[in-house]
């Protein structure tokens, strides 16, 4: 059998999102892989330069579909840093709740994502259904399920509804009670272990050279988590651990996701206890917010997304619109360089496993 070109995406059941990889295969083995982004290119960064500071709040969540809140937090924190705005304490705690809920939701979705490539279709249905409960919280809290536009420069948009704390606690209890099921279905499943252990390997040196962060790096034994390394919001006031593994394979990455859900639940419970009463945003502009001008300056802020370091570099020249905004997509290194470098030699079966456990997210590459 000669070399065959296989279009893996954008219309392929094993592909997450609008992204394509052209695979050159011999039999079942990949000889060459070429990532082809661009199907989702909306020019987010350029669009931001044409919109006012506050109009952008509605645009930025679209850069990352599974976890939109990191964009809002990064963008708001960058503006606050440039304009030296003090954010009320309560708002920062609420932001932490939103971020951690989004992390749990994304990891649950990731269990769904790994189910597809493995053929374990019970995972997707369970994962998506449980994630929906978190979306219910978001709907109560922000009015929207996916793109919340809740975190704005200066704080958050609205006070939390009165009974939302009970709802969050109950949902966390529920998710915690479901975790053993996921462990039995996925992590302790013998065939899953056969399929994932030693697959999609990434060693520490390559991960550091490419700039892979997040779970991809932590699975190689480097405890690099921005919440610990460079704490933002109030992450230095809560207790949590950063799970790491040393194998650097697909199984350890999935296991880390599972362990991180537990840590996120722990963080949210502490936040609910420690959160003070008080104002939820700072009024820093007189009159029309759309005419607000951020003083001249620049700032880089980053947060720990589920896939790694997610950063915004914002430059203002004192106008009513940003001069330049650059987004560091967390999955950019593994999504472009990783595919080209590490897919050759693997089997077709392992291609979607690489894409899923590395969290390759097309809009981050196409921003």
């Amino acid at each position, binding site marked *: *059998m000669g070399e*065959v*070109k*296989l279009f893996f995406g954008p219309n*392929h*059941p*094993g592909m997450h999102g609008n992204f394509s990889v052209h695979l050159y*295969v011999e*039999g*079942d083995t990949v000889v060459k892989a070429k990532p082809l982004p661009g199907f989702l290119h909306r020019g987010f960064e350029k669009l931001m330069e044409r919109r006012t500071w506050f109009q952008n709040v509605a645009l930025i969540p679209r850069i990352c579909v599974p976890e939109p809140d990191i964009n809002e937090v990064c963008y708001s924190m960058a503006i606050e840093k440039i304009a030296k705005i003090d954010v009320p304490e309560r708002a920062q705690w609420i932001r932490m709740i939103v971020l951690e809920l989004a992390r749990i939701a994304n990891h649950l979705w990731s269990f769904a994502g790994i*189910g*597809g*490539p*493995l*053929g*374990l*279709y*019970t995972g997707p*249905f*369970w994962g998506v*259904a449980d994630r929906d409960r978190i979306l219910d919280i978001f709907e109560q809290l922000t009015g929207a399920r996916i793109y919340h536009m809740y975190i704005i420069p200066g704080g958050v948009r609205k006070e939390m509804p009165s009974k939302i704390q009970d709802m969050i606690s109950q949902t966390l209890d529920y998710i915690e009670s479901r975790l053993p099921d996921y462990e039995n*279905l996925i992590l302790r*499943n013998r*065939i*899953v272990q*056969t*399929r994932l252990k030693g697959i999609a390997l990434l060693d520490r040196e390559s991960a550091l050279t490419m700039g892979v962060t997040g779970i991809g790096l932590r699975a190689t034994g480097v405890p690099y988590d921005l919440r610990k390394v460079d704490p933002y919001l109030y992450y230095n006031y809560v207790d949590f651990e950063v799970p790491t593994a040393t194998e650097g394979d697909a199984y350890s990455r999935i296991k880390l996701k599972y362990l991180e859900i537990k840590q996120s639940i722990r963080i949210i419970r502490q936040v609910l206890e420690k959160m003070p009463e008080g104002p939820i945003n700072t009024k820093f502009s007189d009159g029309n917010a759309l005419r607000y001008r951020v003083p001249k300056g620049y700032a880089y802020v980053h947060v720990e997304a589920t896939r790694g370091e997610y950063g915004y570099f914002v430059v203002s020249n004192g106008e009513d619109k940003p001069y330049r905004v650059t987004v560091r997509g967390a999955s950019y290194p593994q999504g472009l360089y990783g595919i080209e470098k590490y897919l050759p030699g693997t*089997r*077709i*079966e*392992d*291609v*979607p496993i690489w894409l899923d456990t590395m969290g390759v997210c097309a809009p981050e590459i196409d921003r």
Partner: protein
Amino acid sequence: MTIFKVAAVLLTGFFVGLTLEGIARKIIARVQRRYGPPWYQNFIDVFKALSKHGFSHGWIFDFGVLMALGGVIATLSFVPLGNLVAFPGLDNVFVVLYLFAVGALGMAMGMVGSGNPNASIGVARALTQMLGYEVPYLVSLAAIIFYYKTSSISNLMNLQADSWNLFKMPIGAAVAFISLMGMLGKKPFDTPIAPAEIASGPMVELSSKYMGLLMLMHTFSIFVEISLFVDIFLGGGSYLVFLLKFTVVWIIATLISAVLPRFRIEQVVKFYWRVPLGLAFLQAFFVLIGWVF
């Protein structure tokens, strides 16, 4: 009379097969905590697909699909369903196994004729997998044929009147069941159609009528495979008792597949040639030295 019996066998295959597939979808849905389609969904699917205008990929493609369906229908008419035997005296294990290959080869030919690389990879995987499960299956069948000194399925059924082969030769029955999972293409052995890897493999270029015909072929093959297992390992009995046993086997296979992921193709073959083949030889050895319960 024979023609009525053949019609009865085929109609059973059609109605019971499609109904049980629908029920399996419902069962899997409940495992996955969702509502699931109605039990008659597969009838709707088949009739809808058959009623639409299709797109052909050349005569090899057309011929392959018809050969697949024809081969499987021919095989089914030789399989005894309890005491309903269409061709008494001809219902031989070897007849069924050889005729069954015609359907598989027809499908392979037609799907490769579609020219899609995904289909070619899928067919290559299907044939590789067949190599994996056929060997342990045939070894365990050979042990049974040696023990009873007959290869007629009806005779094998009647000879189990006192005790089923499931209890007489439990290891062989386990091997046959694992092989059955591979034949049915149930997880963990659904590698040939793996949607996330090769976009459903052989079926990738099928539209409308062709899809409908292949769905029917799939239903009939499931019926042949499980019927063979039920006849050989779960004893004889009347037509209704047979259908009851058939349903139980099908539901167990469905439940197992609902919580397992799929193997890679080389893991499939490695698994079959290591565990079930070893067990099959063990069973054959026990039969040779007369250790049968």
